């Protein structure tokens, strides 16, 4: 992420006990336009260190006067969502990256099936604005728990009518992955954003029904999960960097002044690929194949082991 945009928090809404929505306005000039499915990195200056978390843009791409994101409070997080929930107020200034899109709509789909689990609704908020403006054919399936993760349900139900299919876990309703995919028109595309098991289940069903891989799309951000501390050694400069358990390798490199190209910070875009010459690696990305993993790693999500230093080709 190269250039940063300066934004001001123009509005904050508590949508559910755990989901908070933020509206950002430009401090200078106009915010760049964005396409539906885009995300931005938000720089979060926590007391002990600075995090960069990626959040989907919720608004209508046709109206890019402001950006909106919705953030779920993650109990097990590294503090980014807690900071947004507890510290950030209307009028505060934040820095964000320019929008980038790793989860775009497919322009040639005849019918769009959107499946959201919980906070996974966020990219689809922009999708829905776009699909409605285009007059496209679509349906939304949204699994949530009322009183907890049911952001936007009332609004969506009213707006989408029969195209809205809600599944409230609190009422014992379950999203039936098997039924969801049968009898869909040829040229339907499936978009999934939600927990890993929802993704795994739908992908397996789609494969069993003979859906080609190109008709399945998912947003698979693996936010950097905490791990064990380890040491990285930059073999070209000899520099040694200690990576704390709740830092990603990419963050530790950046803190040491080493710039590595990056986009998603979630192991999917391939931008941060870095060669390594030795050491134990815990690969957590969704980008590299087994062969590449023998000499390349993705420092935004992947980590070294504790047996010895990770030797990076930097």
């Amino acid at each position: 992420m190269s250039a940063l945009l300066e934004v001001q928090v123009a509005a904050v809404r508590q949508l559910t006990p755990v989901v908070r929505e933020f509206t950002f306005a430009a401090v200078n000039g106009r915010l760049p336009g964005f396409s539906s499915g885009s995300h931005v990195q938000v720089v979060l200056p926590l007391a002990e260190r600075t995090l960069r978390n990626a959040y989907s843009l919720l608004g209508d791409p046709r109206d890019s006067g402001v950006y909106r994101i919705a953030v779920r409070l993650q109990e097990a997080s590294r503090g980014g969502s807690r900071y947004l929930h507890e510290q950030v107020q209307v009028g505060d200034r934040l820095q964000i990256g320019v929008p980038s899109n790793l989860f775009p709509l497919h322009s040639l789909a005849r019918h769009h099936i959107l499946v959201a689990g919980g906070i996974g609704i966020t990219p689809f908020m922009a999708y829905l604005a776009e699909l409605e403006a285009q007059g496209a054919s679509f349906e939304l399936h949204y699994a949530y728990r009322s009183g907890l993760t049911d952001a936007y349900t009332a609004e969506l139900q009213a707006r989408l009518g029969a195209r809205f299919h809600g599944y409230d876990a609190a009422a014992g309703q379950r999203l039936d992955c098997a039924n969801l995919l049968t009898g869909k028109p040829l040229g339907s595309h499936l978009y999934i954003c939600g927990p890993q098991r929802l993704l795994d289940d739908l992908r397996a069903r789609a494969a069993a029904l003979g859906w080609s891989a190109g008709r399945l799309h998912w947003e698979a951000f693996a936010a950097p999960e905490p791990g064990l501390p380890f040491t990285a050694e930059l073999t070209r400069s000899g520099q040694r960097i200690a990576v704390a358990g709740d830092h990603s390798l990419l963050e530790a490199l950046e803190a040491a002044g080493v710039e590595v190209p990056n986009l998603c910070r979630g192991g999917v875009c391939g931008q941060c690929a870095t060669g390594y010459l030795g050491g134990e690696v815990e690969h957590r990305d969704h980008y590299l194949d087994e062969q590449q993993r023998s000499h390349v790693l993705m420092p935004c999500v992947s980590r070294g082991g504790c047996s010895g230093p990770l030797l990076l080709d930097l």
Partner: protein
Amino acid sequence: MSVVMKALETYRDDFTFRNSPEAIARFPFPFPEDSYMYSVNLEPATPREPGSVFAHWFDIDEHYVSEMAERARVLERDPDRCLVMPHMAQAAWDTLEMLMEHLAADYPEHFALQREGAQWLWSNRPLGIEQRFTFGDASTLPCEPLEYITRQAQGDFALLDQRDGDLFMDAGMVTCPADWSLKFDAGMSFKQWHAPVPGVAHQLGVFERALKYLVNIQVGHPVRRLNWTMTINPRLDTSSETFHEWGHERGEVTAENVASLVHLRVELQFMPRLPRSNALLFGIRTYLISLEELASNPAWACRLHRVLRDLPDEIADYKGLTRYRQTVVDWLRQFDPQACAA
């Protein structure tokens, strides 16, 4: 730096197109070395010195009015040189917005844009245009938005839809291509439309690596590269469709007319992400210079001599240079001290 536009010149028939000394000085000479081979020569399009062709996203020069008149003539005969598939309508509006915003900001003496919500007022002084319209509503413009704005911007434009990790040529305005055709390439993928390029580029993995790079281009971070070929006469429209009009001219090059007839043709290719559609814009800004004009800079003439002399046959053939390459090399030799001494 203010651009002074020349009176109308032609790119056909009597070919009155010429470069001023200022235009020659800013010509994007494309060879960093004495030899040429295909490579992934992409770089971030960071602005360079004011006045250079790299100063702005969309370069306007002294030929602006003439080049726009030439585009209008080509479109009059062949309206299909502009194509926008239905799913590219938003990308067309994105392109219009990007061009208007940048032209107005970079050349305020020539262009102006006033926006009030969706109500826009566009002024183009060199072409005498004042247009009020509603952004997003094509019925408020005299023609389709991509055609509207690219009739007012130099160079060709292809709009690539990004899907399935690939790029597809699903829209464009192409009236001055170097021997290809939008009609033929319409709907093709990155690999498909590059299929005619010599095998060596494919063997070097140029297209695989370039595509990976292009699909990751971010909003606000365009990239650029230079490409080159040669053209007989300052003819902009060397499209495959009109090959019968210009192909035979390659046989007309003689030792006497080579310096004025043969032109180096350089494309400054500029690739920004279109923000709302997520499509990629591919601008192809073409610069022509006769060998005579080019030789006013002897260092360029010397280098071009070496490049052309040593260019692999496969590449020379593909670029259509084979029939007259030797005549050009013979003429350029005088500028190469090493070759003259030998």
